[in-house]
């Protein structure tokens, strides 16, 4: 078994655009769930808004790509308003139900055959990202030691991580402010915040919108890096939301770097277990009847699930979390 290449692949995955996509989605969830206590189970819906908002103007109207960025963000804002207006006055669980349903509604809507002139139907949209890759300064593969990145990937990596860093900077500013304090107060006890003169409804809506914009950025990043948008469950369906949650909890909720580090570790571990199982298979350590080649993809998620359970048992606050905070029953 070639351990070196397994580790190189895992490290390469750690900085891949995919990790940046998860980091952006998880930063949004951190604002929703970590700081405000909003249970948004529809982050994939916000990603869909971003991805299709980006691709549709290019595909359907032939407009330049940058207009898509604006549409993607606007679509996320509208989606947040539509979700928040009826549910944010109610108890927290209603938002959870509505977001998970709305995200799926949106995904089924964009794959509807009758909309295929606009959204590409179940085939999705391809070939809208040339505006971005035309700007690519890299012409050949970039190599650092054993690592090697294709020019397109490198360009997407730079965009993704710049967005993540900007996002973290933004979060640092707003979370460590009186505004951020109100967010946390709402998470702890909404009525207490209202009794002290805070407009909880408005602040929750702001939080939903901002976290949703991060979701949309993740969706745009997904669309850009893969060069296509697909209305498939693994791209924009519920698993995406729950993987982003897993990454967030792994890193530590309500911690600035929690979602970023969590996403990096999540993606690297996924790649690592994948490499490990495949390596063990080809070395003949795992018999074919036990895990077949097609089952590796599933197996790594099982292993990751076990890992997450162990984390919850022994370090429930995540990697960055504060153990003291877990002591209070809230």
């Amino acid at each position, binding site marked *: 078994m070639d351990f070196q290449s397994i580790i190189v692949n895992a490290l390469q995955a750690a900085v891949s655009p995919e990790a940046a996509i998860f980091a952006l989605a998880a930063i949004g969830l951190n604002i929703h769930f970590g700081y405000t206590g909003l249970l948004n189970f529809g982050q994939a819906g916000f990603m869909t808004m971003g991805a299709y908002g980006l691709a549709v103007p290019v595909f359907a109207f032939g407009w330049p790509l940058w207009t898509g960025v604006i549409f993607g963000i606007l679509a996320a804002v509208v989606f947040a308003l539509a979700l928040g207006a009826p549910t944010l006055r109610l108890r927290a669980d209603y938002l959870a139900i509505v977001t998970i349903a709305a995200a799926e509604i949106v995904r089924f809507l964009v794959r509807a055959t009758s909309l295929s002139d606009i959204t590409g139907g179940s085939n999705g949209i391809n070939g809208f990202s040339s505006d971005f890759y035309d700007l690519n300064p890299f012409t050949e593969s970039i190599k650092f030691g054993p690592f090697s990145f294709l020019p397109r990937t490198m360009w997407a990596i730079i965009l993704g991580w710049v967005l993540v860093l900007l996002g973290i900077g933004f979060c640092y500013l*707003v979370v460590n402010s009186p505004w951020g304090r109100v967010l946390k107060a709402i998470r702890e006890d909404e009525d207490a915040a209202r009794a*002290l003169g805070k*407009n*909880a409804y408005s602040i929750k809506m702001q939080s939903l919108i901002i976290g949703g914009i991060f979701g949309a950025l993740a969706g745009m990043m997904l669309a850009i890096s893969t060069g296509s948008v697909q209305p498939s469950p693994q791209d924009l369906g519920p698993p995406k939301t729950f993987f982003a949650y897993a990454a967030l909890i792994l890193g530590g909720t309500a911690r600035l770097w929690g979602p970023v580090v969590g996403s990096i570790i999540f993606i690297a571990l996924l790649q690592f277990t994948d490499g490990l199982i495949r390596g063990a298979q080809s070395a003949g350590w795992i018999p074919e009847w036990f895990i077949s080649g097609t089952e590796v993809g599933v197996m790594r998620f099982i292993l990751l699930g076990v890992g997450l359970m162990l984390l919850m048992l022994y370090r429930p606050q995540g990697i960055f979390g504060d153990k003291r905070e877990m002591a209070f029953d809230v």
Partner: protein
Amino acid sequence: MSSASEVETAWGADRPESTPGSKKSDPILVVDGIRRTFGGLTAVDVDHLEIQRNKITALIGPNGAGKTTFFNLITGFDAPDAGSWSYNGEPMSSLAPHKVALKGMVRTFQLTKALARLSVIENMKLGAQNQKGENLFRAMMRGWKDEERANEERADALLKRFKMDHMREEFAGGLSGGQRKLLEMARALMTEPDLIMLDEPMAGVNPALTQSLLGHVKELRDEGRTVVFVEHDMDVVRDISDWVVVMAEGKIIAEGTHEEIGKNRQVIDAYLGSHHDEDLTFDDEEE
């Protein structure tokens, strides 16, 4: 401890009549015909109530009398079926809770709402009103640092006054029940309220701390604030209240000084049942 005569002297010529819904010389809160029903149960049905400014008014009554529901209605946490009320002459009906608080009427809760995963000082700073930094765009621009420093100084002074300054950096979730009551009262004061409504401020607080809490409540009045509080402990009521309002089954059944209330037949009946002093036997030695 204020004796009855002391209470009477404090009122002087402004002494209101001891009848339910009596007129006050300078009311801060006037409630008219407020009613709230839950299905078939009428929780609150108050015809008229005035709360005198700069006095400590106790709201007492047996369990289920509607005291907390009344608090919830007045502070916007619940909506009445009918009725209106005004605060400082301004109509307050159907105002959202945060707007009520911004007008200077602030409440605490029977079950304390300490914000567990925020430190004591952060809990306090949350109380400051109209903070520039609570606007998202201004929060980013960092133009709120001076204001924050001023709020922090005020919070520290209040913590000192409530003898909680040594717990400044602790998580509020780690405080004892009594300390949470203190924190909640101190946090409410950060809003600089004119009218402060305390829902069972002494419940679950040990006797030593009760004494200091009582002192703090009296200080509020001496600062020119108005206090309304719900309490079950009659010693507390006797100790600090200038005026007592008694509720039973949603209605105001009596008003007066604590001395008068202690002798009021209707009040005793409400608490103990109207036949409480009649013996079940035919012995007529009693009385």
